C-alpha cells in the first residue's frame, strides 16, 4: 500500500517544529506501525536526510516506550493497542496519516516524536511504593489476600506509563496514571500503612508537575492500551479526600523520609 505521512519534525527542545510530508510507498499491511516508520527512516537515511526520532523498545506493548498521536488519536485507531501493536492493515491504501508527539505541558518535546515523561517517574517517587526494605519481609503466604482484591490490584497495576492518558486528556491530566498506582497499592493489605500519605504525596507531586486537573472527560480510559478504568480516579479522589481530612499536618507533601 502507498501512504502519505505528515510527521511532526522538531530538531530540539527549544526549536520550532512543523509537519513535514513524506511518501510511504510499498508498505505491507503486515507491518506494524513502527516497522512502517523503520522503512521510511531507512529510506530517509539512504537519501541523506535525518530519520524521524521516536521512542520504542519492546515492540510488544508492555514497556510503554512508544506512543504518538496518530490522526489525533493517542496510539491510533485500534482500541486497547499501543502504537507498536498497531498494524498497517488498520489503514487503507492512499490514506494520509498525521503523526505527532504526545501533546501535554508536562511532556516537553525532546525531538520529533520523542517527549520527556520524567514527570511520571517523579509521581511514583513521591509515594508510589510500599516501603519494604530488602530482607524485611515475612513469609509470602502469611497475609492472605482475597482473590478479588488481588485481581483488581492487578487490573490497575497493568499500567505501562506510556502517557497516552495524559495526551488524550483535554486537560492534560495524569489522574488515570496516578490513580492506577494508588489503587494497585491501596487495594492490597501490604499497602495500607502508607495508603493515605501515599495519596496525598502523589497528588501533590502531580499538581507540581503542571498536569491539568481531572474533570472526568473519560478520554483517558478510551486511549489506555491496557484498558484501565476511570474507577481508579474515584479511588484516588476518595483516598485523597479522606487523607486531607484526617492526616496529621506533617504527613502532607513531605516526600517520604521513611
Amino acid at each position, binding site marked *: 500500500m502507498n501512504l502519505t505521512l505528515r510527521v511532526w519534525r522538531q530538531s*530540539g527542545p527549544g526549536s520550532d517544529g512543523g509537519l513535514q510530508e513524506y511518501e510511504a510507498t510499498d508498505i*505491507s*499491511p*503486515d*507491518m*506494524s506501525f513502527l*516497522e*512502517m516508520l*523503520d522503512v521510511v527512516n*531507512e529510506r530517509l*537515511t539512504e537519501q541523506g536526510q*535525518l*530519520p524521524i*526520532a521516536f521512542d520504542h*523498545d*519492546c*515492540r*510488544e506493548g*508492555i*514497556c*510503554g516506550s512508544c506512543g504518538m498521536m496518530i490522526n489525533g488519536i493517542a496510539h491510533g485507531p485500534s482500541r486497547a*493497542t499501543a502504537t507498536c501493536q498497531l*498494524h498497517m*492493515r488498520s489503514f487503507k491504501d492512499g490514506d494520509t496519516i498525521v503523526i505527532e508527539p504526545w501533546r501535554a505541558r508536562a511532556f516537553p518535546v*525532546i*525531538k520529533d516524536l*520523542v517527549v520527556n*515523561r*520524567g514527570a*511520571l*517517574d517523579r509521581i*511514583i*517517587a513521591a509515594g*508510589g*511504593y*510500599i*516501603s*519494604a*526494605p*530488602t*530482607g524485611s519481609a*515475612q513469609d*509470602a*503466604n502469611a497475609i*492472605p489476600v*482475597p*482473590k478479588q482484591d*488481588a*485481581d483488581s*490490584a*492487578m487490573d490497575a*497495576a*497493568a499500567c505501562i*506509563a506510556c502517557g497516552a492518558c495524559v495526551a488524550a486528556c483535554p486537560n492534560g491530566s495524569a489522574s488515570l496514571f496516578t490513580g492506577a498506582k494508588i489503587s494497585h497499592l491501596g487495594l*492490597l493489605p*501490604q*499497602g495500607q500503612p502508607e495508603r493515605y500519605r501515599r495519596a496525598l504525596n502523589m497528588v501533590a507531586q502531580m499538581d507540581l508537575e503542571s498536569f491539568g486537573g481531572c474533570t472526568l472527560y473519560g478520554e483517558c480510559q478510551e486511549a489506555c492500551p491496557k484498558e484501565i478504568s476511570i474507577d481508579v480516579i474515584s479511588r484516588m479522589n476518595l483516598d485523597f479526600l479522606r487523607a486531607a481530612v484526617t492526616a496529621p499536618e506533617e504527613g502532607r507533601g513531605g516526600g*517520604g*523520609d*521513611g
Partner: protein
Amino acid sequence: MTLDLNARIPSGSLAEKWDKHRFEMKLVNPANKRKYTVIVVGSGLAGGAAAATLSELGYNVRCYCYQDSPRRAQSIAAQGGINAAKNYQNDGDSIQRLFYDTIKGGDFRAREANVYRLAQISLNIIDQCVAQGVPFAREYGGLLANRSFGGAQVSRTFYARGQTGQQLLLGAYQALEKEIAKGGVKMFPRSEMLDLIVVNGRARGIVVRDELTGKIEPHLADAVVLATGGYGNVFYLSTNAKGCNATAIWRAHKRGAAFANPCYTQIHPTCIPVAGEHQSKLTLMSESLRNDGRVWVPKRKEDTAKPPGAIPEADRDYYLERKYPSFGNLSPRDIASRAAKEVCDEGRGVGPGGRGVYLDFADAIKRLGEDRIRERYGNLFEMYERITAENPYKVPMRIYPAVHYTMGGLWVDYNLMSTIPGLHVAGEANFSDHGANRLGASALMQGLADGYFVLPNTIGDYLASNKLEPVAANAPEVLGAVSDVEKRTSRLLGVKGKRTVASFHRELGKVMWEYCGMARDAAGLTKALEIIPQLREEFWRDVTVPGEGADLNQTLEHAGRVADFMELGELMCRDALHREESCGGHFRTEHQTPDGEALRHDETFAYVAAWEWAGEGRPQILNKEPLVYENIKLSQRSYK
C-alpha cells in the same frame, strides 16, 4: 591460561556454603557506607533490585539506563512466571529439587554452588516481592497460586497473569524510586555506558554518553555493577527489545573481563514467524499453548502452499508425536525447536518463506469446546490475531523458533565478581547459573536473587577488604577511556558511507542464525568466521550514520551497538566451533546420539570456556574453569 579463574566457592556442604560465606565476609560499618559510591548499569530486575537495596543499606548509588525511565528495562516483557521452592503445593518440592532440576535443565554445565544458592534464595524473593505489593495470582482462599512449567514435575511457578516480569520489575522500580526520592540513588536515564574505567587493575568507573546532549563524561566509583541483560540481538531478530545490546559487557570484556560460554543461546520453539524483510522483532507465544495444540506440517512438499484445511488428516505429519511418542507436543524447548527447523529444511515448512509449522487447536476445540480454549488462552489468541490477522480458533497458528535468551555472559566468581576486581555482573549479563540451557521461569529468579540478595552482601565484602585510593578525575586511565569513546564516536559519524546501520545488523543476524543458530557444524561455523570479519570491515568502510553527536541520535546509538555485535558474533562462532560436543542450547550436528539427541563429552568439555581479550585484531585466548560435581552425578538428559 593467564587468567585467575578461581570461583572462590566457600568450603563446607552445599547447604551451608552461603550461610558460612555471609558470616565470613567482611562488613562495612553502617556509618561508613555512605562514603562508598557504587555504579549500577542497567535498571532491570537485577540492576533495579541491586541499586535499590544497596541504597537501603546506605551506599551512595548511581544507576544508569538507556531507556527514558528505569521502569522500561526488558525484564518487563517476561510473561510466564518465577520459580521458587516454596512447596506451597505440598507436591514434593524442595531446595534440593529446584537445584537439581536447574542443573539438569542446564545440561550439567553450571556451577553447583551458585545454583544451590539460587534455589535457597528463591524463597526470600517471593516473600520480598509480595511485601512490595506485587499482585501475584491467588486462589479463592487468598493464598498464592502456582502453575507448572517446563523441565519440572512440581508446581513451583508464581505468576501475575501473563505479565510476571512487568509486575516484578515494577516492584523493584518502585523501591528504586523510593530511594531516588530519599537521595540514596542518583538516576541517569537516557544514558549509555560506552566504556569501563580500570585504574590499577580495578574497575573504578564508566564512561557515559548522555543520549540527549551527546556529552561523553567519566563517572567514578568504588565498585561497578553491570546488569545490562543478554546479547540475543546479535541475531537481529529475537524476542529481545530493540534496544537490548551487549555494549556494556563487551566494553568490559575489552578492558579485561573474561567472556564465558558465549555460544550458549536459547532458542524458544513457539514464536510468531517472520512475515517479511521488514520484520523488526519476534513475539513469543507462551509455551503453555503446547498443552492443547498439536504441531504438524504437510507430509509432502507439494502441499505446503495449500490452505491447512485442504490437507486431509492422512497427509499431515504430526512430527513431534511421531518422533517422541511419550512427550509428544510437550517435548523440551531445544528438541522442539530443532525438530521444527528440520522439517522446514526438508521443504515442508508453511507460510511466507516456508519457515513455519502449524500449531493446531482443532482437536482441542472439538474435545473441550471453544469457550474452554478461550478461557485458557484467550489473551494469547488475541495477541496472535492482532499480529497475523488470522483467527486461531478457525485456522491453525503458524509458529517458528526464535532467539530468546543468552546463557553466556561475563565470567563471574561466587561473589558475582568478574576477572576485573571491583567489576560485578548480575542477571542475564553474567554466565553463572543456567549452564547450557535455562529452564522456564528461572530468569526472573536469577535476576532478583543477584540484585536483592547476593550483590548487596558481596559488594560490602569487596569494599571492606580492599583499600581503594581516590581516583583523580584527570587520571590518565580516566582521560584515556573518555578519549577512546570520543574517537570511536567520531569515527562512526565520520565514515559517511552508503549502507544503513540496520542493513548491516540484518545481514549479521542472518549469518549468525544460519551458522550459529539452532544447529551448528564445523563447516558452517568456519564459514561464518570468514564472513563476519569481512562484514565488519565493510561496516567500518561503508556505514552511514546521519546527524551529529551532540544531540539525540538514535542511529548513532544503534551503530555503536552493531559494531560491538560484529565482534561478539565472531567470538560466539569461535566458542561454538571449539566446543566439540552438544549440550543444551548448543547443538553440534556432528555430536548427537543415534536418535538425534544432544551428545555431551564430559571427559573433555565439563568446563566453562572463559575467553580472554588479547588485543585488537587478535583472537581471544581460551581459559578453562573446570566444573566439579561433588553432589550430582552427571547423566545423559532423557526426555523420551
